[in-house]
């Protein structure tokens, strides 16, 4: 029964992540990378890593530093490691991207850029995993949502390990030359562990608690999430062990991925059933915008799962994998994250500003820090844009894709302005905005 305090740098993680998202969207609008270039082209890799590391991993790490202590009711193991981790991740990504740009002929950089960036990123992620891992370790036995996070962290380690090996191969170093075939079959493991294991699995676990909290649904049942967790772990284990075996034997990769995919589908189905159950037993009738938009994001995951099955059945999976990855990264993960930031940022700001004076003077509610009606249109534009962009990829219309991403970028800018307004308390009515004893929060750092 130890309290939780505000993580000072969570807001900084969010800000850095949004900057990467905007940059990636801008590059896609400009026609950089896929689908104008091949899916494995260095230019595409620039965008992919900007989105997966710069945006999604950074925002998730920032959120976990705040959320894991809430989940397990223990303080974060080492708050002082969070800022160095952000610095390592950001610097590592910049160096890695410079490496990809060199590989693509845009820059005349040295060969060590890729392994150098990879090394910095591994160091940054190691700090994150150690910090969150020690926090989880102190709270055993873990509640179900925290087990998802633990599984996600394990996948992050696998993703980073493969990424580090690739950087050695791609940079043409002597060490990397020992595994010339690693890229051929290792890429799918790297991508699945990252997108499926780390990002999706962790987001699922976190959303169990967040959805239950914001829908006022009871999530105390120990069985809740059990099937989704077990099937998900089976999917990850089959994918990784099978994938590694296939890599070694140079055959059977497709079988391993198919089995892992089936287990993943079962996990998603169980997760969908659980969320539906929480929705049905909720005590809060009218849902807030963040919850409604999280459910829209979930619909993208369902759509991606159905499309995957359909493409596998018709034998056209490999030609549509780009569109599917886009739908998972933006329709599902980015949509879910933006929806939850719309609650988390105002909540943290509210706690920081009004916590010290609460009960002593009238204070606004958390919902007074936001104007849902004005934010709704940006969410609509964002989700419509992400689905339109996926469609444009499926029908191979690059110009249409760029237009749709432009709409998403506009929506991201609109929502960023809303987050900034929440930090600035811009939507709080005047008499209650800054009562005596309350201090205006900083935009990018929390007082704790």
């Amino acid at each position, binding site marked *: *029964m*130890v*309290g*939780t*305090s505000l993580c000072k740098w969570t807001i900084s993680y969010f800000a850095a992540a949004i900057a990467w998202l905007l940059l990636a969207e801008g590059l896609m609008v400009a026609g950089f990378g896929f689908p104008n270039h091949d899916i494995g082209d260095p230019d595409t890799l620039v965008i992919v890593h900007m989105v997966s590391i710069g945006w999604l991993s950074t925002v998730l790490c920032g959120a976990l530093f705040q959320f894991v*202590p*809430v989940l397990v*009711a223990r303080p974060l193991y080492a708050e002082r490691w969070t800022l160095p981790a952000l610095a390592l991740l950001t610097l590592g990504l910049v160096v890695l991207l410079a490496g990809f740009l060199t590989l693509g002929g845009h820059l005349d950089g040295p060969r060590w850029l890729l392994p150098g960036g990879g090394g910095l990123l591994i160091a940054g992620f190691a700090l994150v995993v150690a910090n969150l891992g020690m926090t989880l370790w102190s709270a055993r036995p873990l509640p179900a949502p925290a087990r998802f996070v633990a599984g996600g962290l394990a996948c992050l380690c696998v993703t980073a390990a493969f990424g580090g090996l690739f950087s050695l191969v791609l940079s043409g170093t002597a060490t990397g030359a020992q595994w010339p075939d690693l890229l051929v079959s290792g890429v799918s493991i790297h991508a699945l562990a990252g997108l499926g294991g780390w990002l999706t699995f962790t987001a699922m676990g976190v959303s169990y608690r967040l959805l239950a*909290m*914001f829908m*006022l649904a*009871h999530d*105390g049942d120990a069985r809740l999430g059990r099937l989704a967790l077990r099937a998900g772990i089976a999917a990850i284990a089959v994918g990784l062990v099978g994938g590694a075996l296939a890599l070694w034997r140079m055959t059977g990769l497709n079988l391993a991925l198919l089995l892992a995919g089936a287990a993943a589908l079962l996990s998603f189905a169980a997760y969908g059933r659980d969320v539906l159950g929480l929705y049905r037993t909720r*005590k*809060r009738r009218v849902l807030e915008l963040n919850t409604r938009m999280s459910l829209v994001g979930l619909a993208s995951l369902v759509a991606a799962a159905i499309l995957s099955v359909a493409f596998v059945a018709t034998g056209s999976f490999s030609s549509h994998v780009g569109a599917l990855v886009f739908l998972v990264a933006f329709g599902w993960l980015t949509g879910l994250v933006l929806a939850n930031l719309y609650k988390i940022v105002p*909540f943290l700001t*509210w*706690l920081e500003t009004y*916590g*010290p004076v*609460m*009960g*002593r003077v009238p*204070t606004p*509610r*958390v919902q007074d820090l936001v104007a849902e009606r004005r934010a709704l249109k940006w969410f609509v534009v964002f989700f419509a844009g992400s689905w339109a962009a996926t469609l444009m990829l499926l029908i191979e219309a690059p110009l249409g894709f760029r237009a749709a991403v432009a709409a998403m970028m506009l929506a991201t800018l609109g929502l960023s302005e809303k987050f900034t307004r929440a930090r600035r308390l811009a939507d709080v009515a005047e008499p209650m905005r800054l009562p005596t004893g309350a201090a205006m929060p900083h935009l990018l750092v929390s007082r704790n």
Partner: protein
Amino acid sequence: MTAFIDVDVRPILRAGGEPFSIIMAALERLEPGEGLRLYAPFKPVPLFDVMASKGFAYREAELEGGEWEIRFLPYDGSVEAAEPASAASSNGDWPEPVVHLDNRELDPPEPMVRILAALEQLAPGQTLFALLGREPVFLFRELERRGHQWRGGFTPQKDGYQLTVRVPA
């Protein structure tokens, strides 16, 4: 005087055993108004929250050799009846709560706001009791800043959280 059932967990712990179930079993056997006297080789701090959530206050006394005698007393008023003012300096006998809040149906962070607002109305030394839907992790930080003491724990059915807060005297 309160009647006590004695439970000595020292031999169990020395033998490497697990005393929690034995304490809980002894608790089941208590008659209304009866207390539990526990002998332990260390101060069983985690147990205090568990017992508080079951409606027991405690008094502690250190024995020789670092061992402890803990007396758990039911919260039903027999605490005061058994030993009036004499034990007031011990932190085991909080007065009956003057405010009861049921915050289970409230949207977070409304439970926290209500508790902090209600605490501002209490006189020094008075206590407040609240039922919550989940553990109020962000509230503890604010209670600590304001110098309040608290005891809390999940309900036996795990479907809620019980919290008692005392305003500093």
